[in-house]
C-alpha cells in the first residue's frame, strides 16, 4: 500500500474522530448509525465477501450482541463494557455451534438455512423470561452520544484493520481460495472447515459488538428490532454495493448508501423509498462489481466502463 494512501486514510479517520467536537448533533447521530452500518457490512464482508458464504444469520449475531449487552445491563446491573463482552461471547459461541453443521451447505442453501436460524432465534428470545420476553428490555438513558460515536468509530477502525490483515494474510488467502473453489482449496491444503468457522466467528465478533453499542445507544430492545432480518439484507446490500471481498468497499458502500437514504428521507421525504430502490437497481446494472471496481474501471477506461459492464453481463 502506498504511503500517501496510508496518510490519507489516517487523515480521514482523524477527521471522522473530531466530528463530535466540531460537528452538529445530527451529524453525530447520523455518524453513529452509519459507522455501525459500516461495521456490519464489513463483518458480513468477512464471511460473505471473502469466504463466499452469503450469510443471513448475521442478524442473529447482531441480536445476540444486543441481548447479551441488554440482559447484562438491565437484569444484572453490570457495566456496559462487561455487557459488550457478554454479547460478543454469546455471538461467537453461537457462530461456532451453528457454523459446524450449516457451513456444510453452499450458496443459496447456506443463505436460506441461516435465514431460518435467525427467524428461530427471534422466536426463542420472544419467549424467554430473562430477555424480558416480548415486552422488551429497558436500558438506562445516557447523554453521551459523543462516546457512542467514538466507540463506533473505534470498532470500525478495528474491523477494517482486521479485514486488512485478512486480505494480506495466509488466512485470508485461504478464505479466498474457499470462495473461489472449495474442493481446490482443500486439495491444496486449506483446512476449509476450520477457516470457514473462524471467518464466521470473526464476523460474529464485530457484528455483536455493533449490536451491543446500538442497544445501549437506543435504550430499548425487543426481539423484533434485535433479530430484524431486513438488517441482514442491508448488510448484504451495502457490501455488494461497495464491492465484496475488498478492504474498503463495504465501508464506502455503507457510507454512500446511508447518506443517500438519509438525504432522500430528509429532503424529499415520502418519495425516498422509491428513489432508494431506483438507486439500487441502477447501481446493479451499471456497476455490478461494486463501487470499488467502478473507481478502478472509470480510471482505466472512462465512462465506457459502465456500458462495458452491461455488455458483459447481459444475456
Amino acid at each position: 500500500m502506498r504511503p500517501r494512501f496510508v496518510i490519507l486514510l489516517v487523515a480521514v479517520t482523524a477527521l471522522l474522530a473530531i466530528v463530535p467536537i466540531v460537528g452538529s448533533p445530527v451529524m453525530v447521530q447520523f455518524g453513529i448509525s452509519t459507522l455501525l452500518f459500516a461495521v456490519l457490512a464489513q463483518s458480513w464482508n468477512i464471511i460473505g465477501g471473502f469466504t463466499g458464504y452469503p450469510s443471513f444469520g448475521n442478524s442473529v449475531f447482531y441480536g445476540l450482541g444486543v441481548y447479551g449487552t441488554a440482559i447484562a445491563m438491565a437484569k444484572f446491573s453490570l457495566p456496559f463494557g462487561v455487557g459488550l463482552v457478554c454479547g460478543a461471547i454469546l455471538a461467537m459461541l453461537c457462530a461456532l455451534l451453528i457454523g459446524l453443521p450449516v457451513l456444510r451447505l453452499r450458496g443459496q442453501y447456506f443463505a436460506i438455512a441461516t435465514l431460518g436460524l435467525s427467524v428461530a432465534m427471534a422466536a426463542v428470545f420472544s419467549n424467554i423470561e430473562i430477555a424480558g420476553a416480548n415486552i422488551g428490555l429497558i436500558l438506562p438513558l445516557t447523554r453521551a452520544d459523543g462516546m457512542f460515536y467514538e466507540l463506533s468509530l473505534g470498532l470500525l477502525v478495528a474491523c477494517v484493520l482486521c479485514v486488512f490483515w485478512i486480505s494480506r494474510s495466509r488466512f485470508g488467502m485461504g478464505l479466498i481460495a474457499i470462495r473461489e473453489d472449495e474442493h481446490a482449496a482443500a486439495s491444496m491444503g486449506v483446512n476449509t472447515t476450520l477457516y470457514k468457522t473462524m471467518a464466521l466467528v470473526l464476523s460474529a465478533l464485530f457484528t455483536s459488538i455493533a449490536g451491543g453499542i446500538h442497544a445501549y445507544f437506543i435504550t430499548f430492545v425487543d426481539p423484533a428490532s434485535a433479530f430484524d432480518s431486513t438488517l441482514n439484507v442491508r448488510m448484504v446490500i451495502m457490501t455488494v454495493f461497495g464491492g465484496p471481498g475488498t478492504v474498503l468497499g463495504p465501508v464506502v458502500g455503507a457510507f454512500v448508501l446511508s447518506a443517500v437514504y438519509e438525504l432522500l428521507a430528509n429532503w424529499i421525504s415520502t418519495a425516498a423509498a422509491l428513489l432508494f430502490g431506483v438507486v439500487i437497481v441502477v447501481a446493479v446494472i451499471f456497476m455490478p462489481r461494486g463501487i470499488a471496481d467502478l473507481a478502478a474501471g472509470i480510471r482505466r477506461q472512462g465512462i465506457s466502463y459502465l456500458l462495458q459492464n452491461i455488455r458483459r453481463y447481459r444475456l
Partner: protein
Amino acid sequence: MNASSITSPATGMAPLLQTQDITKRFQGLVSVNHVSFDLNDGEILALIGPNGAGKTTLVNLISGTLPPSEGELRFQGTRIDTLPTYRRARLGIARTFQVMKPFRDLTALDNVATAALFGQRGGATTRQAAREDARKWLDFTGLGHRADQRADALGGPDLKRLELAKALAQRPKLLLLDEVMAGLNAVEIDEVVEVIKQIRDSGVTILIVEHVMKAVRSLADRVVVLHHGELIAQGNAETVFQDPRVVEAYLGKRRA
C-alpha cells in the same frame, strides 16, 4: 485378478503410496473395484483406461476429495484414507483437476501464490515470499508472461499450465496429474512432457492419468490399466500395451 501389494522391484524401498483393495461405490454403482497397486518413490506411474474406467475417481480417492467405500491408503507407510483432504495435502500430495478449477477472480500469480502458502508443510509463510515462489513456478511452466492476468482471462492451454504451476507450488512429494495434456497440440504436449520429466528429476513422484499414449510411452516407468473400475493390467508400457485384456478394453470400447 486383483494384484496384491507388490514391493518395488526397481529400488527395493518401501513404496511412497500403497492402495489396498480400494473401492468406491456410488449408490450401488461400483466406480472403483478393489484396486491395489503401489507407487514407488521417484517413479512416474501412468494410470490409463477407457473413458469411465474410474481413473479420475481413483485420483479423487487418493487426494481425499472423495472418501473410499472400502480399502486402505498408505502414504509413506501411514494410513491416510481417513484423513481429510487438507491433511493429505499438508503431507505432500498435490493434484491437478481434469475439470480445471482456477481461482477465477485472482491473477495467475495469486492463484499460484495461494498454493505456495499452503501445500506441503514448511512452505512460504508470507504473501511476499509466496509470490516470489509463484513467479518461479509460473516461469517454469511457461506462464511467466501472463502472471498479472486474471485467471478468467486465460485460455485452455494456459489454464492447464496454471493448474500444473499451482500443484508444483505446493512442493509435493506425490503429484497427481489428471489429464494435463488434454486439448493441447503436439508442440504443447512435447513441452509439457519435458516439464514433467524435469519435475520427476527433481525428486517428485508422479501419478499421471493420460489419454495421450505418445506421452505415456515417453514418460511412464510403469503403467496401470483400469477398466470398469477394475485393475486389469500393470507393468512397463510395452508389456501392458500388448496385454490382450488391455487391447480388448480399448478396441471393445472403439467398436461400441
